[in-house]
C-alpha cells in the first residue's frame, strides 16, 4: 500500500517520497551555483554567466546549428569549444522532480501558438538585454550597472504585465 501524506493545503495528497523545497532554499542554492559556475567551472567569459536560460539556450542551439548546418551564428566565448548545456540539465532535473513526486501530467493551459510567440519574444528581448530574468539579477548582484538597469526594466515590465492581466481579468 502506498503511503501518502496530506499537505497543509489539505486538498492534494502526494507520495511520501515527494521532497519539499521552498523557493528561498532554491534561491540560495541557485545563487551559490550560479556564482560557482562562473568562478570555478569556467562558465565564462562573459562575467556573471553562470546561469541564464536564454543565453545558455541560445549557445546550445546556435552551437549545434553551427556544427550540423555549417552556419556562423553567434555563441558566447564560454561556449566556443563545447556549449553550456544548462537547458538540457534543467529539463532532466525537472523531469526527475516531476516523476518522483507524481506531478507529471500532460495538459495545456494556453494556446500553443500564443505560447510559441511569447517564447520567441522573450528570447529576443532577453538577448537584447543580455540575459533572462535570472542573469539580469545575477549581473546586478555582480555589481554591473547595466545589469541593474536591465533588471529595473524587467521589474517594470512584470508590474505592467501584471496590471494588464488584472485589468483583462476584471473587465
Amino acid at each position, binding site marked *: 500500500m502506498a503511503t501518502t501524506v496530506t499537505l497543509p493545503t489539505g486538498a492534494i495528497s502526494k507520495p511520501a517520497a515527494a521532497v519539499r523545497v521552498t523557493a528561498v532554499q532554491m534561491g540560495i542554492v541557485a545563487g551559490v551555483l550560479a556564482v560557482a559556475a562562473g568562478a570555478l567551472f569556467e562558465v565564462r567569459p562573459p562575467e556573471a554567466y553562470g546561469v541564464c536560460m*536564454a543565453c545558455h539556450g541560445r549557445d546550445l542551439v*546556435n552551437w549545434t546549428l553551427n556544427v550540423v548546418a555549417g552556419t556562423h551564428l553567434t555563441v558566447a566565448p564560454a561556449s566556443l569549444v563545447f556549449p553550456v548545456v544548462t537547458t538540457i540539465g534543467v529539463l532532466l532535473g525537472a523531469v526527475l522532480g516531476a516523476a518522483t513526486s507524481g506531478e507529471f501530467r500532460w495538459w495545456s493551459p494556453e494556446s500553443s501558438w500564443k505560447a510559441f510567440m511569447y*517564447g520567441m519574444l*522573450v528570447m529576443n528581448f532577453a*538577448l537584447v538585454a543580455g540575459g533572462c*530574468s535570472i542573469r539580469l539579477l545575477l549581473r546586478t548582484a555582480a555589481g554591473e550597472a547595466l545589469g541593474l538597469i536591465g533588471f529595473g526594466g*524587467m521589474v517594470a515590465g512584470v508590474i505592467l504585465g501584471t496590471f494588464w*492581466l488584472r485589468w483583462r481579468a476584471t473587465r
Partner: protein
Amino acid sequence: MTAAVATLVIGVILGYLGQRSRMCFVGGIRDFILVRDGYLLKGLIAFGLTAWLAFPLVGLFGGARPGPFGASEVATVVFTILGGFGVGYFSTLANGCPLRQHVLAAQGVRSSIAYLVGFFAGAVIFHTWTAPLLFRLLP
C-alpha cells in the same frame, strides 16, 4: 568541456529544485502584486542576496562590460532597459520566466513545450534578423 559538465550538473540540480519549489523569477513580483503572496518573491530576493554575497567571496567583481553590440553608451542603456522590459512583460503574459517554462515543459505542459520551441527559434531569429536590424538602427 569543464563548463559543459558543470552546467549539466548545475542544470539538473536547478531543474529538480525548481520543479519541487515552483520557483519563478517573475512570478514573485506578479504574485505579490496580485495576491500579496511573498513566497516566490522571497526566493527571488534570496537568489539575489546569495549571489551578491558570493561574488566577493570568490573574488569576482563584475566590471564594466561592453554592450551586447559594442554600441554607444546611450544606445546600450536604452536597449538594456527595453530588453529587460520586454523580458518582464512577455514572461508575465506567458505565465512564468524562462526557467519556469523549462520546468513546466518537463512536467508535461504542452503550451510550455510550444513556448520552448519558440524560445529556441527566437535565438536563431535574433542572430539572423533582430541583431542586424538593431545594428542598422544605431547611429
